């Protein structure tokens, strides 16, 4: 215990006075601060866009409301009711932007067919998407291991090469004691800086403190422990500092760059997503069909019958507003026919994501990124959750207007307030995080096991 305190104290003094450390820590804090600023500004921009659309929505709704008279038809209002369905950035999104820059995060939804409204894209600069986001997750996953490596590549070899090791070992302390105390110090130091940056980010970004913070810190702590374990392994090879620096950086490249890209290459070829030709053709073709049969009275009648069979409450009374009812019936079947195609591609992607998550065990960096994205709800899965939410809300709108239209009701001012409004519901953090953390823990144990075994 006394030795721990003593070594910590002198390690700290030595480090603070070392030029490399001064540069490294300055750079680290600088990139950390920039990453916090960058993530916040990116997400604030998305929030601002959502706010703008909210205002636009309110304005449009207000002008629509003023048009309501005693004999307003519900479809007139329905056709003009655009509701914002949004996937607002979570508090933590600023720290791990994940896939949010690739997927659209808002939709304007009408009660019409959903299939023709859901395929929006967010425009973005492809070069920026290619290089990716400089967020805090990037700093924690890419840069911190480099910092740990810079601090630890000469853990013992530096003492050996500097000639102090023999003098050190002539004292009642063993080499492995020194090693463990030194790496514990480095772990604490890196985690301390990370903790500082995360807490700073929590304050700057105004993040509500809940157990996400604990999960985030736990993942960070484990990820750093993984790298400290790698340091232990390389250190126990007892080679010179140059060898250590190179092997550590080599390991960094394999874990942070090569393995994730190889997993991605595998996933891209094993679960290739076709160009959705069938989907785009079907969306167009099926719609064309509806219009082609528009004037076919017999077909119209049958479609209405079919809808009534499916939903008894939407029984068509052909005497009133008949064309609209026909189209609404067709929209329902249109969505129904296209649903399997949408589901097909969604399933491919979700399957890919879950295989990717499992293969993530090969790279602690990939695992940690996935954990961060899940915590920040910026992963692919969350995007599909958002699409599901959009579908659920659309169904709500559809029921609201279909009921009024098929029951031949006029649209009252009082009804206006009843138009469903989308409210974003945050999905609770689920066991994907638990699994990720467990896998990360496993890799820490494996690495440390190897490191300790090599000690002999």
């Amino acid at each position, binding site marked *: 215990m006394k030795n721990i305190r*003593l070594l910590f104290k*002198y390690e700290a003094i030595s480090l603070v*006075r070392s030029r490399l450390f001064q540069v490294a820590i300055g750079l680290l804090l600088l990139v950390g601060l920039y990453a916090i600023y960058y993530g916040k500004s990116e997400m604030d921009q998305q929030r601002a866009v959502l706010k703008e659309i909210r205002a636009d929505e309110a304005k449009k709704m207000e002008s629509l409301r003023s048009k309501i008279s005693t004999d307003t038809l519900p479809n007139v209002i329905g056709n003009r009711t655009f509701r914002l369905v949004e996937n607002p950035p979570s508090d933590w999104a600023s720290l791990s932007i994940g896939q949010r820059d690739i997927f659209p995060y808002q939709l304007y939804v009408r009660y019409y067919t959903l299939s023709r409204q859901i395929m929006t894209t967010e425009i973005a600069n492809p070069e920026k998407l290619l290089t990716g986001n400089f967020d805090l997750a990037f700093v924690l996953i890419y840069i911190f291991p480099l910092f740990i490596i810079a601090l630890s590549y000469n853990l013992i070899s530096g003492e050996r090469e500097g000639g102090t090791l*023999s*003098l050190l*070992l002539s*004292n009642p302390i*063993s080499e492995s004691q020194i090693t463990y105390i030194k790496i514990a110090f480095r772990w604490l130091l890196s985690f301390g800086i990370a903790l500082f940056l995360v807490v700073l980010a929590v304050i700057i970004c105004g993040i509500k403190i809940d157990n996400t913070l604990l999960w985030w810190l736990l993942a960070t702590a484990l990820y750093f422990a993984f790298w400290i374990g790698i340091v232990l392994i390389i250190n126990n090879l007892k080679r010179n500092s140059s060898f250590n620096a190179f092997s550590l950086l080599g390991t960094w490249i394999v874990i942070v760059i090569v393995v994730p890209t190889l997993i991605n290459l595998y996933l891209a070829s094993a679960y290739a997503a076709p160009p959705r030709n069938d989907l785009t053709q079907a969306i167009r073709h099926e719609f064309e069909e509806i219009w082609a049969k528009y004037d076919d009275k017999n077909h119209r009648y049958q479609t209405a019958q079919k809808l009534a069979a499916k939903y008894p409450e939407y029984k068509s009374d052909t005497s009133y507003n008949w064309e609209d009812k026909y189209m609404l019936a067709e929209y329902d079947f249109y969505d129904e026919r296209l649903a399997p195609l949408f589901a097909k591609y969604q399933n491919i992607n979700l399957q890919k994501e879950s295989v990717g998550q499992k293969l993530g065990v090969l790279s602690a960096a990939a695992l940690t990124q996935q954990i961060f994205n899940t915590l920040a709800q910026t992963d692919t899965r969350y995007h599909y959750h958002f699409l599901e939410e959009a579908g659920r809300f659309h169904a709500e709108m559809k029921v609201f207007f279909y009921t009024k239209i098929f029951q031949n009701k006029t649209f009252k001012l009082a009804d206006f307030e009843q138009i469903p409004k989308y409210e974003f519901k945050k999905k609770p953090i689920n066991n994907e995080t638990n699994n990720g953390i467990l896998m990360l823990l496993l890799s820490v144990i494996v690495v440390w096991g190897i490191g300790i075994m090599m000690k002999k």
Partner: protein
Amino acid sequence: MLQAKNLTKTYGEQTALNSLNLTINEGEIFALLGQNGAGKTTTINCFLGFIQPSGGSASINDVSVAENALETKKYLAYIPETVMLYPNLTGIENLEFFSSLAGFSYGKDELSSFLSKAGLQNTAHNQRVGGYSKGMRQKVGIAIAIAKKAKALLLDEPTSGLDPKASNEFSEILRELAQNGTAVLMATHDIFRAKEVANRIGIMKEGNLVSVIDAKEISANELEKLYLQTV
């Protein structure tokens, strides 16, 4: 006290140290002479526990080094051929660090007095070791050894690279330590210094301790002659 019993170290076919028997009592200074590779450093490293002997045993204060390495290190101090220290720490901080590791906690004044005693000028005490000369670092090494109040002192060519004056001061310190009951084992090439400071002198050749001479009974010239004949 230091004791070697049939201490042997082999590296494959090579015998670095062959069945060394040696006892150095409290207050005694023993100098080991011999060519490079004769086994002097191997002997010291066995006492330090840095290498595991292939046979026999080395013990300090009747505690076996191989079995209780950490325990024996409490009783010994060591000054390597070139004392290397932490360049970012000052002389006094280096001393404080090492003596704290050994379990002592001295005040600043005490630490400073150890350094002065080892011959380090006062102005250097609070300077970083990065700017020290070899001799100055050597003196910090001596101070570390003094501060440890060790029962056994192991020296591996401690005076190489020191100027004659510093060398002389060093001999003084060794004598003083011996008077206080420390057993000293010193490997050296300096025949003159060995004769002057040691009680007994051993000459090693190819891992064997060939002869042991009482320092009082031999002149420096005779010792040199003997040395040249032996090796």
